[in-house]
């Protein structure tokens, strides 16, 4: 079983469109949407939800106004400025429990958060594990870890070969959580200066956690000079550029229709995405052989 995580650093480079298309091509796989903040993969796969679970994570302090003597110790000690006028501001509370432990009047309790929900769904292409973090909640990293764990369990059960994960933009906690222990990170970038800058940072994270990475340049013909720069950079970093996908309005049209672009029509991006998948499969097989 091989786990592939699709990341980008910068948002909107085409992660989700590519993941949905890989799902069509791979067939024998389980999907995981690790962008729990703003999950979109379900919009292309029309999943029917089979299971729905609450995601409990972390705690929030609550002050009992009757017991509280307004001594002010909690306000003084809270590093997150989460207590104002002897009331807890839930969006600022990080659930450390410091106030609860020091309150001389025992006026503070810690309550469990329901920080979101996760779903196990059936799609035409395979099982999808996805999630929804509650509005303005934290701990997205833990929810990502949970989504991946469920995806792995299902993949084992179904004896499938691949897990394909759609990642979130950025380089922080949900990204780190989706990377750890993955077999391959596919970095989708675009030939813009922002895209290049963000690629360098997300590749840095892959390096730090020792995850092999490959690069796919999406909309490569928007700026071919920048595409060359990315290729040179990748060459210098010894990272393979596995596909160059042209800009095509068919990608947006497919999103409008709610279907993966490779099953939308014979657009010029489809052969490139097919090539991308072949290259990923070859790379993973090669790595397995090497290990043997």
């Amino acid at each position, binding site marked *: 079983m091989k786990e592939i995580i699709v990341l*980008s*650093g*910068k*948002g*909107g*480079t085409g992660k*989700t469109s590519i993941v949905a298309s890989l799902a069509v091509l791979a067939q024998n796989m389980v999907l995981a949407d690790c962008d729990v*903040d*703003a999950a*979109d993969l379900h*919009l292309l796969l029309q999943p029917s939800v089979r299971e729905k679970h609450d995601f409990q994570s*972390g*705690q929030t302090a609550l002050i009992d106004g009757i017991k509280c003597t307004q001594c002010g110790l909690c306000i003084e*000690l809270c*590093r*997150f400025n989460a207590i104002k006028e002897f009331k807890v501001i839930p*969006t600022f509370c*990080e*659930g*450390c*429990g*410091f106030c609860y*432990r*020091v309150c001389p009047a025992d006026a503070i309790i810690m309550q469990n958060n329901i920080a979101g929900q996760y779903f196990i769904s059936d799609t035409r292409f395979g099982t999808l594990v996805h999630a929804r*973090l509650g*509005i*303005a*909640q*934290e701990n*997205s*990293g833990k929810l990502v870890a949970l989504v991946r764990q469920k995806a792995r369990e299902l993949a084992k059960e179904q004896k499938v070969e691949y897990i394909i994960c759609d990642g*979130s*933009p*950025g*380089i*922080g*906690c949900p990204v*780190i*959580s989706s990377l750890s222990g993955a077999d391959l990170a596919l970095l989708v970038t*675009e*030939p*813009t*200066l*922002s*895209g290049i*800058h*963000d690629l360098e*940072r997300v590749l*840095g*994270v892959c390096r*730090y*956690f020792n995850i092999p990475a490959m690069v796919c340049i999406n909309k490569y013909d*928007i*700026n071919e000079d*920048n595409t060359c720069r990315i290729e040179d950079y990748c060459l210098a970093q010894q990272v393979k550029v596995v596909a160059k996908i042209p*800009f095509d309005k068919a990608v*947006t049209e497919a*999103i*409008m229709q*709610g279907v993966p672009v490779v099953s939308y029509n014979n657009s010029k991006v489809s052969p490139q995405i097919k090539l991308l998948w072949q290259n990923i499969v070859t790379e993973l097989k090669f790595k397995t052989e090497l290990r043997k």
Partner: protein
Amino acid sequence: MLKRMLKLKNSVIDKMIISVASGKGGTGKTLVATSLALSLKDKYSVQMLDCDVEEPNDHIFFKPTITGSEDVNISIPKIDENKCTNCGKCAEVCAYHAIAVLPNTVLVFPNLCHGCGACAYLCPENAITEEDNQIGVVEYGQADKIDFVQGKLNVSEAMPTPVIKKVKEYVNDKCVSIIDVPPGTSCPVVESVTGSDFCLLVTEPTPFGLNDLTLAVETVKALGIPCGIVINRAGKDNDVIEDYCVKENLPVLLTIPFDIKIAKLYSRGITLVEGIPQWKENFIELFNLIQEQVYERNHSLKR
């Protein structure tokens, strides 16, 4: 028209915080934030704060002269092995499992520590002091007439929020401050948007754009901040967003058409108003509309 001009005259607000957010990544936050700042710089004092500390991009467009920087640290525990009795209290009180007490030693995992300080305060032996762990940096400087501030989270660090907090300490309440917000809807977004007078939500007319806009609107509403919509890459499918905005009573304040020329400018790190100067007027009009919205809201709050 006259009525509107009168209203505008009364509603000129030259000090406010406008955050530019989106939910979905890559919809054009940076494009809108940078062009808005450049369009206002001749008339107002303008400050640009890049709170997308995981992937800050505004500097690519502004090429600012950085004049100073400040480290962002969180306090992590340092254990004095001579005083420590391995009682286990610190591990017990740590909500983030950042401390493990073994028979002969105590391990601290800095990446998990949120710096709450509970362990140091509650250690019965006073064996814990706190030391700084650098997780990022805030840089500041000038770009033309614009005051520029950006945060950068160190690669491999997981917690952007303390860096965002530090960036926001630089907010100057005597000017128009424009905050570039990271994508998403969770804690980094909340931290960036909190305290704004107005939030611009940039979206695109696709089901992805709509789905993530819906989440972003919920987040901003939960914070009680008024918001307005910018539709980027607009085209024949604008109804996707416009219908939702009518239903939710959200104003669409600016529409930027899909244009390969704009995409190419962006790819070279050129802002929209520099590449196509006619756009400046549209961004000034956008600011006027924001002023009206903020004015009306302040007015209705007073009543």
